[in-house]
């Protein structure tokens, strides 16, 4: 009986982790991007004094606040879940990744939380410049936070800089090796660009919606242009970064790459499977559609380069192949759709009718949630692909669990699903309402009540 409960406990704990972190990651992804976007908008306002930027800022900061609030509450859950469900993992690796998370709280969380207060409620209470500084600090805070959490995550993928002593615990030997572990730089850049692209497509989609409805056209043109600039420049860079990230994974986690590509046998000149139904039980694919040699060319940059198949890692060391295989394809497909959007945008820009091409605006509106799907798919690839380990090659998932009984995890999972569905539903409802309402035009007077006087004093002093 106990054994059945425990085997259930592992899968329940994994589902709970996937669910809570999957829910959580959506919000940092959009707040990282939005914070930088708001910084740019407020900077433009300070430079030009054009009220249109304030109106854009005031609309998007409301959406930012809702997302940030949901990110905070779902993030607090994460900081406890390591202990509640993954107690043995926390005990074993606490020495190594504890400080990384500690530094995240100290250098990022407080910064974001405190200055967000000024960003949201400080209008009229601080000078324009101080308000802009707060926006910048929040934006930098989101990036610092990404730095530490991705360092910790990358260490779990490519662990180094530690030793295991006789008590079975991990002890640090070099902090530089731990923080700057081999997969960290690639994952950090990949994730930050992903956050920027996610936000760009949300902003682009909403702006396209306004242009189609012929509402807030002046504002929408500004934000649509910014979004398309991101699609034109960042989307192709992301492809290159992703490729480097993949090569890094091949070097350090070859089983994950084999699962991403659906390769079971060791192959020279491996084909790129466009479609397949991986069958883990029989260790093969069904209904393959493949391009010969392409996987080897992409991964080894040689037509007959050898790629190790899943079988040579042993069945007990394979990740769940189908999830990794398909998530990867979803992510890549969306990536190419984003690049295509950039190309079309550049083309329409030179034809000078980007704001009037209705089919393209519909296309952009349809792509509004694309970044979220790509981010989630990407995390599925990297996290599920790390299985059956929590710390790759060092600690197995089965040896990471708390000694809590399965029923407790089942109950808490049910609670989280109900609560998150309700909260997420309400959050989405309010965000859609804010989008429908759009920017409030002509309220600039109220924006900085007190700072008006301050800037008056400044201008007198200057003259």
């Amino acid at each position: 009986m106990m054994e059945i409960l425990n085997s259930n406990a592992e899968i329940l704990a994994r589902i709970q982790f996937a669910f809570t972190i999957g829910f959580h990651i959506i919000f940092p992804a959009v707040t990282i991007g939005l914070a930088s976007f708001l910084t740019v908008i407020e900077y433009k306002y300070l430079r030009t004094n054009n009220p249109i930027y304030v109106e854009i800022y005031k609309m998007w900061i409301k959406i930012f606040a809702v997302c940030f609030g949901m990110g905070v509450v779902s993030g607090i859950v994460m900081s406890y879940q390591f202990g509640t469900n993954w107690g043995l993992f926390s005990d074993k690796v606490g020495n190594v990744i504890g400080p990384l998370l500690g530094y995240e709280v100290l250098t990022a969380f407080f910064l974001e939380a405190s200055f967000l207060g000024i960003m949201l409620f400080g209008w009229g209470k601080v000078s324009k410049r101080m308000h802009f500084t707060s926006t910048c600090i929040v934006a930098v805070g989101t990036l610092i936070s990404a730095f530490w959490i991705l360092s910790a995550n990358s260490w779990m993928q490519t662990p180094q800089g530690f030793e295991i002593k006789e008590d079975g615990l991990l002890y640090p030997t070099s902090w530089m090796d731990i923080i700057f572990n081999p997969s960290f730089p690639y994952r950090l850049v990949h994730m930050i660009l992903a956050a920027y692209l996610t936000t760009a497509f949300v902003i682009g989609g909403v702006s396209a919606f306004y242009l189609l409805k012929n509402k807030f056209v002046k504002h929408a043109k500004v934000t649509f242009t910014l979004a398309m600039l991101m699609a034109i420049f960042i989307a192709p860079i992301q492809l290159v970064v992703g490729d480097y990230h993949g090569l890094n994974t091949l070097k350090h986690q070859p089983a994950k790459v084999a699962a991403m590509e659906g390769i079971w046998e060791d192959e020279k000149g491996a084909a790129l499977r466009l479609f397949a139904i991986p069958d883990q039980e029989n260790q093969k694919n069904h209904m393959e559609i493949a391009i010969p040699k392409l996987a080897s060319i992409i991964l080894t940059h040689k037509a007959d380069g050898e790629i190790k198949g899943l079988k040579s890692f042993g069945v007990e060391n394979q990740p769940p192949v189908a999830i990794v295989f398909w998530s990867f394809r979803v992510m890549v497909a969306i990536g190419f759709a984003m690049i295509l959007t950039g190309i079309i945008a550049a083309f329409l820009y030179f034809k000078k009718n980007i704001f009037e091409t209705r089919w393209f605006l519909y296309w952009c509106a349809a792509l509004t949630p694309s970044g979220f799907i790509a981010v989630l798919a990407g995390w599925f690839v990297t996290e599920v692909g790390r299985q059956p380990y929590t710390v790759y090659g060092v600690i197995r998932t089965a040896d990471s669990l708390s000694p809590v009984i399965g029923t407790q995890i089942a109950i808490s999972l049910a609670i989280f699903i109900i609560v998150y569905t309700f909260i997420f539903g309400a959050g989405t409802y309010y965000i859609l309402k804010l989008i429908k309402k759009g920017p409030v035009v002509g309220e600039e007077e109220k924006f900085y009540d007190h700072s008006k006087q301050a800037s008056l004093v400044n201008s007198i002093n200057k003259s």
Partner: protein
Amino acid sequence: MIDFSNFLDLPLIWGLLIATAVFLYVLLDGFDLGCGILFPFAPSDSCRSKIMNSIAPFWDGNETWLVLGAGGLFVAFPPAYSIIMSAFYMPIILMLVGLIFRGVAFEFRFKSHSKKQKKIWDTSFHIGSILAALMQGIILGNFIQGIEVENRAFSGGALDWVNGFSIITGIAMIFGYALLGSTWLIMKTNNETQTWARKTAKYVLIYVGIFMSIITITMPFISERIIDLWFTIPNILLLAPIPLISIITFLTIYYDLNKSAEYRPFLLTILLFFLSYLGIAISMYPWIVPYEMDLWQAAAAPTSQSIMLIGITIFLPVVLTYTGYVYYIFRGKSSEKAMY
């Protein structure tokens, strides 16, 4: 590798740091949870808006101390983190659910325009605050009673946390936070809201007194250690100031609530919390997983504690400075106008 362990007692320093972070959390989130607990009893909608606005710029930063508490425990005492989180599994999950409901209520309430929707988030704010406070009190009550451990892992039952003493500490926590909340509101509001807050604080204070007495009387019966600690000579003489000053503080708050003092009730409530916290901390020392693992047995590697201590020494003063700055910017009485 940087290692301060040959000249610093790292586990002791970390024990003090985490105790400080948890105390700051209790104070800071305490007053905004308290506002949530009292929320529906406010006499009018404009009072409720003032209450909400008085804490909206701060709640997020306040809750970050809870993350620092958990994070600090993970960094400095990994086995304690893993044992405590497993032992208090359900109360922690329920506390988090409470914090979720009250946390989102801020943003959602500002964005609701119909009365009905506002009502939903007012309720969510109120119930969430009570749930979080109750669970924190229950966790404290169980912490005082001790945790069963075998082989560096929790070995008790899933429902061990439901017991008479912990229910009492849970309810005491609700009243304690309500006192912090009401005295905060005396300081941050005026007119109708302030009058109401003053009246409420008086009621709440009486309950706080009752529950504090019950807990103080029952605690020695829970463990002989506590009797030995508090009721032997010379300890009884050294520790006597704590209950004595508590009683004086309590009476002064009551006196102040009948006068026109605006700041002192809140500051004295902080002192009252500090004295209770100190009393509990002295009783629990040196246990981090009572009564199985002490600070030194649960300590992380000295190198891990050292590297984080550097971070704390550099960043904690910075954090405290800008936290103070934010409180300074939003000083003065709260208004009922929507702020953004």
